[in-house]
């Protein structure tokens, strides 16, 4: 699943517009999050279409658009070897450690 980043794999030919993923920052201080996708012939139009579609109820202050084909995904089925090994490392989490009662600011 390693697509070539950059140029959309399906180029805009024959009237077929490529797919873009849209990320919206809903307000300052928050990160952009995935809102959905849309079709557009190029990045400029994708940005404008995203503005009209995904922020028409004032849902955003900033938008990113990314060609869907440029997204490299972790693994086809999104499980097992990639993520399971992290599951048994409870010592990465603060709740793993026992601290005597009364100790503050820790």
């Amino acid at each position, binding site marked *: 699943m390693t697509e070539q980043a950059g*140029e959309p794999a399906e*180029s*805009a030919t024959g009237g077929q517009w490529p797919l873009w*993923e849209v990320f919206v920052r809903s307000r300052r201080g928050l990160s952009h999050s*995935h809102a959905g996708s849309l079709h557009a012939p190029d990045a400029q139009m994708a940005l404008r279409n995203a503005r009209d579609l995904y922020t028409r*109820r004032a849902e955003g202050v900033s938008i990113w658009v990314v060609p*869907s084909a440029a997204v490299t995904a972790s*693994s086809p089925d999104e499980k097992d070897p990639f993520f399971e090994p992290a599951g048994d490392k409870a010592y990465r989490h603060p709740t793993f450690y026992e601290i005597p009662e009364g100790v503050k600011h820790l």
Partner: protein
Amino acid sequence: MTTTAEPGAAPAQAGPDQDALDALLAEFDAAVAADSRIEPRDWMPDAYRATLVRQMAQHAHSEIIGMQPEANWITRAPSLRRKAILMAKVQDEAGHGLYLYSATETLGVSRDDLLDKLHAGRQRYSSIFNYPTLTWADVGAIGWLVDGAAITNQVPLCRCSYGPYARAMVRICKEESFHQRQGYELLLALSRGTAAQHAMAQDAVNRWWWPSLMMFGPPDDASAHSAQSMAWKIKRHSNDELRQRFVDICVPQAEVLGLTLPDPDLRWNEERGAHDYGVIDWSEFQEVLRGNGPCNEQRLERRRTAHDNGTWVRDAAAAYAAKHRKAQA
């Protein structure tokens, strides 16, 4: 980050032997049973994928064909306030169509394919949009009854087992509630207006009531896809359950409106704790489904024409993008 599969990127399903397939199926069933969500790159049974594509495509098509009967009144809306509301509503429907096409594309089909199938009459849209909007009151009746029925159908879909569909529905349901309320308010203004306005509202409700009930689909014992869809949690309630819920919601709303629902058999059943209602004319439903409704041809023709008229525009933008990408490289 959950990535959306691009068209065609769905994992290949050929190859695994029977044991591996059984294991995948067991895993899929367990995920559905545990109310987890199925995501685009997960393995899924072919029939599940096909059911989703059929249902989501039909849903998306319904949104865009559904623009027509209401857009029919944008230029004639009787006040500027109503004109703004109606424009925003029809625009939302285009938006909902877009959300749904995008969600369907995560299953490895492209919007162009789906549109081709719609235009060729090989995929359906909701039959309700094959009825005409003859008066301004029809805009209200569509908002109140048709959108009301749609919401009743759609709210459970927010918990549908397929992630992208469920997420699209969350967004859509949030926006739909404005649609239903504006329709109700529109009818209320007519009902409390002049005698002619009241009559217009009653006439619209008379024409839209039964088709709205048909929107929930055939009775449970005659529904082709229901049982499997329920098991897969694509569907959460049966057609008849949702229809009953809708009737029970509408009766008191109609009273406040001062309008009657055109069903002499409609009455409260103390024992069931629900309203009994008359027999639905399923032959009309089947006829409309078969393409013989009042507007089937007109709706599809309009859609095809719009698409064809847009070809040179889409081509131009694609050509421009290709030229300028080359220039940059």
